[in-house]
């Protein structure tokens, strides 16, 4: 038999590399003389992992999709990918693999695009197997998954996006399973009867988990039986240096010598299977890889899913486990810190959740049993079967199967704008509490975004979801006077929290309908805002809260100033507000100047305000009657009346009335 050649590609993060390695390991076990080549991008996770496991690696150039907007990064993307495809064509022509195993990520883009090209030109015999790990397939796999000879997905539900795919499961390395707990603990130097908590955020680490865990430590370690193992991750970017940040945070809390002994921190956990085996409870992210590993090993898990990922796949993975009683989920919340709004989990929240779980042995046992249902130990063998069948040309075509359907709205699949318009149309009724919790979490993700467009969606959602506990965040946004970039200011921008956000935030204040001294302060700020829509919305908000505001001289003075605003929209709202607030007949003076204002909509507002003032008994009817004559009554605006349509409407309504009156026989 000829020696078979396999080409592995995929990566960028460990999440895409490990599945490829797992598949390759199993292939090598079955065909000891097969050749392997890993194709990746320099400087990414695969550069270290693949050679360490004994797979030669070659590099191509590639880059992540920067978005369809015309930009410099789009040009750079096209250039790098173009070069990468050419490199990949050369590699494919040289190496002539029997099969390609692609596990997703932009790293696999050059090879897969080159393969598609060669295949279309009938220049290659190579077969391609694509594996998607997550529930919601990535952009590249959505495209390539339709063209590959066989596409495997980890979840049956993923076939909603890739109907031609086969649900094969997630490949977990064989060594993962079956490490005895006692041996593992002995190797790691942990007491046999300790309650061991393992916390880690993947190979890179997760800021939320690291910070929350450190904050929770003093509370957790009070129990002398609890040991904590913490994998902080290798991330060392200017935005977040995992190890240093954690050290700094540790320095701020006080632990006794004995407690320090029970807390062990590592940059990364190797071999992970030992740590898994030793742990009673694991805190981790919701990526498909981590979850499947936990499931196969039968671990009790507390999941903190990462927000704002494509299709929100971590949340959906986590919730699938939660529904099966196999795991607990703790969501991140947006919180105001001196780094701006970021996603956090409060230390106390985490500590109490952990303490609760570790204290409930019965529950932990049930979770361990339940999670085993989600672990598919056969997956790796199944996937390798498919790859071998492909390479030898013996793979049977898939019979057509029905695509799974979802019932009801799937919020996780909606875009932010989609959520806003759905909630705007349907309101909050019929949304179960669990979905509300998820939507709150989505909102928090949006609120902590750097792009104002996304933050804006978050602000709107706060109002639509009636998130009263977010009032403080909304007020913070309205008080945030961080200037926009110089270029934006030159073009007419003002603050980082752009005009639309501030305008919508005032709408949210009305939707939340809470009045307190802080709201009052913010309202006063709003009257002075440089953007006209904010000022007019502040005036509307004042009218909305007029009962609570009552007799507030400061607000009255501010509204009086609004009446003279250079912007007619604001002046109009100011006049209307005056109708609600004025206490003295001296408002005449201000209004009299507007009797012949060129813009009739201001005159109209004066009339409305006066009506209101007379109703409230502020103005004497005789006095107002005298004033009427001074009004300029001509107006250049009117609403048409189409008589024919009126009669038609009448006819149609009559038809209905008659129909309703005579019950059908």
């Amino acid at each position, binding site marked *: 038999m000829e020696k078979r050649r396999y080409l592995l590609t995929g990566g960028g993060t460990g999440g895409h590399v490990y599945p490829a390695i797992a598949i390759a390991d199993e292939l090598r076990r079955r065909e000891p003389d097969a050749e392997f080549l890993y194709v990746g991008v320099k400087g990414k996770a695969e550069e270290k992992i693949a050679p360490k496991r004994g797979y030669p690696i070659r590099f191509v150039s590639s880059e992540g999709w920067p978005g369809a907007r015309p930009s410099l990064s789009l040009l750079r993307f096209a250039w790098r990918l173009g070069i990468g495809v050419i490199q990949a064509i050369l590699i494919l022509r040289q190496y002539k693999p029997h099969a390609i195993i692609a596990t997703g990520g932009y790293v696999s883009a050059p090879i897969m695009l080159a393969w598609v090209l060669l295949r279309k030109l009938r220049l290659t015999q190579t077969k391609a197997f694509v594996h998607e790990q997550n529930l919601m397939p990535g952009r590249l796999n959505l495209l390539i998954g339709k063209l590959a000879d066989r596409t495997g997905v980890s979840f049956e539900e993923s076939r909603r996006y890739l109907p031609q795919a086969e649900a094969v499961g997630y490949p977990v390395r064989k060594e993962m399973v079956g490490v005895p707990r006692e041996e593992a603990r002995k190797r790691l130097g942990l007491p046999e009867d300790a309650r061991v908590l393992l916390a880690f955020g993947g190979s890179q680490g997760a800021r939320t988990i690291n910070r929350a865990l450190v904050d929770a430590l003093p509370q957790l370690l009070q129990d002398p039986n609890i040991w904590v193992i913490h994998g902080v991750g290798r991330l060392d970017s200017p935005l977040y240096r995992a190890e240093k940040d954690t050290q700094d945070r540790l320095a701020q809390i006080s632990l006794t010598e004995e407690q320090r002994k029970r807390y062990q921190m590592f940059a990364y956990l190797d071999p992970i299977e030992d740590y898994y085996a030793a742990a009673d409870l694991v805190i981790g992210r919701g990526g498909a890889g981590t979850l499947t590993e936990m499931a196969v090993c039968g671990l009790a898990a507390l999941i903190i899913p990462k927000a704002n990922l494509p299709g929100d796949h971590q949340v959906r993975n986590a919730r699938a486990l939660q529904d099966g009683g196999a795991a607990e989920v703790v969501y991140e919340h947006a919180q105001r810190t001196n780094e701006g709004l970021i996603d956090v989990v409060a230390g106390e929240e985490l500590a109490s959740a952990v303490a609760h779980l570790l204290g409930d042995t019965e529950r932990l046992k049930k979770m361990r049993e339940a999670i085993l249902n989600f672990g598919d130990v056969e997956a790796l063998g199944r996937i390798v079967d498919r790859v071998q069948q492909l390479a030898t040309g013996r793979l049977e075509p898939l019979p057509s199967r029905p695509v799974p359907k979802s019932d009801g709205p799937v919020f996780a699949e909606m875009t932010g704008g989609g959520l806003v318009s759905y909630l705007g149309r349907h309101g909050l009724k019929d949304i179960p509490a669990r979905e509300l919790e998820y939507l709150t979490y989505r909102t928090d993700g949006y609120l902590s975004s750097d792009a*104002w*467009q996304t933050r*804006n969606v978050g602000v709107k959602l706060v109002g639509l979801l009636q998130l009263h506990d977010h009032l403080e965040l909304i007020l913070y946004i309205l008080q945030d006077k961080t200037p*926009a970039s110089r270029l*934006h200011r030159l*073009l*007419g*921008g*003002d603050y980082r929290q*752009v*005009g*639309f*956000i501030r305008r919508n935030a005032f709408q949210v204040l009305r939707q939340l309908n809470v009045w307190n001294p802080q709201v009052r302060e913010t309202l006063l700020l709003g009257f002075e805002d440089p*953007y006209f*829509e904010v000022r007019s919305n502040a005036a509307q908000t004042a009218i909305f809260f007029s009962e609570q505001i009552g007799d507030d001289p400061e607000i009255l003075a501010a509204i009086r100033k609004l009446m003279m605003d250079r912007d*007619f*929209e604001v002046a109009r709202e100011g006049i209307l507000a005056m109708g609600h607030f004025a206490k003295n007949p001296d408002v005449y003076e201000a209004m009299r100047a507007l009797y012949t204002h060129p*813009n*009739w*909509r201001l005159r109209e507002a004066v009339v409305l305000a006066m009506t209101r003032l007379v109703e409230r008994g502020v103005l004497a009817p005789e006095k107002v009657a005298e004033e009427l004559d001074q009004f300029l009554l001509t*107006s*250049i*605006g*009117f*609403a*048409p*009346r*189409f008589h024919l*349509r*009126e009669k*038609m*409407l009448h*006819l*149609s*309504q009559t*038809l*209905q009335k008659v129909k309703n009156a005579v019950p059908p026989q």
Partner: protein
Amino acid sequence: MLYHLSEYLVQAFEAAGPLRLVRYISFRTIVAMLTSFLITLLIGRTVINFLYRRKIRDVVRDYSVMSVESKKGTPTMGGILMILAILASIALWGNFRSPFLYYLLFAMFWFAAVGGIDDYFKIRNQNSDAGLSRKAKYLSQISYGLIFGFFFLYSGTTPLPHPTKQSGCRVKTWKSKECDKPCKTNADCATNTCGVTGAVCMQGRCAPPAACSADAQSKACRSDEACIASCGSGAYCPKHWEYPVPGNKVLVFRPSQLYIPFYKFPLMDLSWLYIFVIVFMIVYAANAVNFADGLDGLATGPTLFSYLVFGIYAYFLGNMLTARYLWYPFLPGAGETAVFCGAVVGALVGFLWFNTYPAEIFMGDTGSITLGGILGTVMVLLKQEFLFFLLGGVFLAELLSVAVQDWLGIQVLGRRIFYRAPIHHTFQHRGLSEPKIVVRFWIVSAMLALLSLAALKIR
């Protein structure tokens, strides 16, 4: 058809002499205008009923909750009415030997197809967002621009004069001081006329011989000898298409030269790069009219004035005497564009009859994209592209307001810059009623049209 018929009759029968009138562009422009106007009036009602019955409108779903103030349900795709009238009028009065006419008809069919398809999808799905995608629209306009630009610039097919085409006879030394002297009769010019014999006295000044001023100067000459024979001793046959400019100079005309209003000389010769100017102007014009089509009669008025002014330009540039008098390059045959513009103006007035507030019919993209596309073609053919920024100031305001609001304001800065965009919605928001805004826009565009006519002389 009437043009060609009368031509035949005049040749064949002496009694048909008065029909010579049909040859004149001024006459044909005016009758084309009247014809298309009358046709729109005659078939207007029928077309409106036809469109309404074919459900080419927003369909009212529930009559018991409909608004009594809105015009929802007005038939759209009224551009068809105009296109029919223009076609009929041109069929009667057009000179089908003129290449200009084919360029304009091609533009009309292309853009009518684009606009028609767009409208069709919108109506079929009862959704104003379901038409052609923005990308498809721009692509269709750009590809038209490229095709048109190629034929316009390529020496073999351009309808305009080209250096490869020879111009008419020229008089060599017609220096102002010596030759252009004051006179009373032809006899005063007979002596010392810069070596030209047979000079004539015109409007108190000596001018080249009359024989040379007409046919011999406009038709391509064969040789210097032939020119001397028809124009006198100082005449010659130039190698290129030349036209005189002040300062006793001649310039070689090329279709790819860039002209701007209020300036006599071409800025530069862009050669093949000129195709980008053409594409830009075509896309700009088509979208300008499309965006302005937001209120009853809002697009109709300014478009009408634009066609009127370009028609007048076409008449002057296509006439050798007026072109020379105004120091424009003479564009033989361009007068046919005036006839076409006349037909469009007539159709627009007829359409306005039904379209004015409150509208009985909307033009739809079938109308607006077609009118804009033809307008873009007309200004390129007359080499007056940049006049449109002045003449179509209303369109410029509409487009700019949308660009500033949508791109700069809503996408980048996260705030409104105008209350609403396009700009006519800002006026509506400020409380102006629809007819008021529309008539004011007409007034503004009429004033801009006057300014643009002044640009004919002030250079």
